């Protein structure tokens, strides 16, 4: 096993974002590798931003565990293209954490900024706090968001969670914001709390809302009551402004009439 501890140093301009897509378990396998991060337009060595400690050895990414400590709320793109191993973030994490990841585990003890697990293919992201907008979504103009894997958010999610989702699973234990699952094509989105306007332009996949869906869109057809895990829930098909091939299960819903 190899344990890597990255502790964020005190910074003179703490709000300037740091782009650190080099932080993936696999990259630490190569002892010769240089790690560069970007602070705005300056390319820096990783040690300019983090105290780095490395213990043990590893033969594969699965044997590498990275811990990020300190104020990492402005560190972006951690775990981008990650394909195995584990990243533990003790505090909050910046935007685009786990972009395109295909395997492994990212665990965030604090909150995650927007675009958590953008276009992810596999693996798991567990966020103990809240996630901001666009968790598991696609990039701008992209047809497909998340395609596989699991994002579990113990707190609330912001707007557009699972936008253009095309596979995999998102579970939000708290509330979701506006338009979760908009343009969803496939995969499963579960919201334990409330949300508004779920799944506009849905063309496939499944969404389950155990709280209240506010401003429910009128273009979903009520298909009657059913039960999930002995919870009474209404099944809707839609979105009939397009072909209507998706399914939403909603415990309660309110329309804007």
């Amino acid at each position, binding site marked *: 096993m190899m344990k890597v501890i990255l502790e964020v140093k005190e910074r003179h*301009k703490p*709000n*300037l*974002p740091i*782009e650190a897509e080099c932080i993936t378990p696999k990259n630490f396998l190569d002892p010769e590798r240089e790690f560069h991060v*970007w*602070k*705005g*337009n*300056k*390319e820096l060595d990783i040690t300019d931003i983090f105290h780095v400690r490395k213990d043990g050895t590893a033969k594969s990414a699965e044997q590498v565990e990275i811990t990020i400590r300190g104020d990492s709320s*402005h560190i972006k793109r951690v775990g981008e293209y990650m394909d195995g191993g584990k990243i533990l973030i003790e505090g909050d994490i910046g*935007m685009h954490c786990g972009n395109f990841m295909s395997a492994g585990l990212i665990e965030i003890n604090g909150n995650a900024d*927007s*675009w958590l697990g953008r276009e992810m293919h596999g693996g798991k992201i567990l966020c103990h706090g809240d996630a901001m*907008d*666009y968790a598991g979504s696609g*990039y*701008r*103009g992209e047809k497909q968001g998340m395609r596989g894997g699991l994002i579990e958010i113990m707190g609330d999610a912001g707007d557009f969670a699972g936008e253009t989702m095309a596979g995999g699973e998102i579970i939000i234990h708290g509330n979701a914001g*506006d*338009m979760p699952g*908009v*343009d969803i094509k496939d995969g499963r989105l579960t919201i334990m709390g409330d949300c508004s*306007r779920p799944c*506009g*332009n849905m063309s496939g996949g499944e969404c389950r809302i155990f709280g209240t869906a506010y*401003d429910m*869109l*009128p*273009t979903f*057809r009520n298909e009657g009551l059913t039960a999930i895990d002995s919870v009474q829930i209404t099944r809707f098909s839609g*979105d*009939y*402004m*397009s072909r209507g091939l998706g399914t939403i299960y909603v415990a309660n819903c309110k*329309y*804007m*009439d």
Partner: protein
Amino acid sequence: MQEIKDMICPFCGCLCDDITLEIEAGKIVSTDNCCTIGNAKFLGKNRLKNPIKKIDGTWTDITYEEAVDTAVEMLLDADRPLLFGWSGTHGEAQCVGVHMNEILGGVIDNTTSVCHGPSILAIQEVGHPGCTLGQVKNRADLIIYWGCNPIEAHPRHMSRYTTYADGYFLDNAFRNRKVIVVDVRETETAKVADEFIRIKPGGDYAVLSSLRAILRGKSDMIPDSVAGVSKTQLMQVADMCKTCSFGALFFGVGLTMAKGKYKNVRNAIEFVDDLNRHTKFTLTPMRGHWNVYGANEVMAWMTGYPYAVDFCRGVAFYNPGETTAIDILARKECDACMIVASDPAAHFPRACVEQLRDIPLVVIDPFETMTTTIADLQIPVAVTGIDAEGTAYRMDGIPIKVKKAMDSDYPSDTEILTRIYNKMLEVKGL
């Protein structure tokens, strides 16, 4: 007294090209054909006489040379400079801005991000079924204004291109051209419409979805009322749209900035797409600033992206919501800023204005504005359309040469930006 005809009004996205100016003793004294807001721009006062710099909290007059040096120093010192504005200047100056941003490794964004940015995001998802305003004027027999109020924001839009304009292919255009207005309140424009749809705030997406479902023959599932609009009216409007021979949907920030933002616009585009299975229908964003469309054109052809372009790492990265000026400022993610031809202090949220106040701020603008009060340096320039000339793009994407009416001692935006850019090259040894 000298009279100059066929001048371009540099105020709103209509870019009216039939303005007459009366000039006396090197000053514009009156305008003809112009609307009141355009007129106010031509007769504008408060022009700053020379560059000013804040030294120990007080404004000091400096020369252009000193101003250029100061601007270069402030911007080159930064780790993440932001270059914002651009929609109030001509395309040639915008080009220099993009080059400068590349040298600096900064973020360049234009005012699109606070008006029609969502429209562009939607267009990037599903395309743009657009046409020129000339087509609308001569062919359209149905006009929809959705979330916009041209009578107040684009005062000559209706007289030049829609309601009050003659149409080459239309008989008695004034009578036969129908106008639908969709808004959350009864605006001046709504009062002259044939059909006014009053929508509850945040209800645009649901109403567009319902219209689309009706077009697809799914009207049975639409409830009696959607976001304040009766089903009867929705059916009637869907029918008006389907049976017209050429429809044109114009939309404004009422749609782009309402809840759901770009997904509203995407829904509107797809509604227009659906209508094109029945008739001819087009869609045009009502662009606000006279050359904001040009800013999108210039940035798109030079960098691949129309606004919010981050060059920090030497290559263009675009992600509205992350690389847009409002977001960068609110999150304090920049450490110097240059504003060109825009007045963010008057429009931006408070947190953003505070960040602008706290970092080195260069303003390039002919007039003293709200932003002047929080700046560290302001360089006055000539006004495009009055004493400077250049290219601008009308809201329908038509490039128009904006002429100047007179000469002055002020440098144009292009001239001053080129001087700053050349100095940057010199300092960086490039």
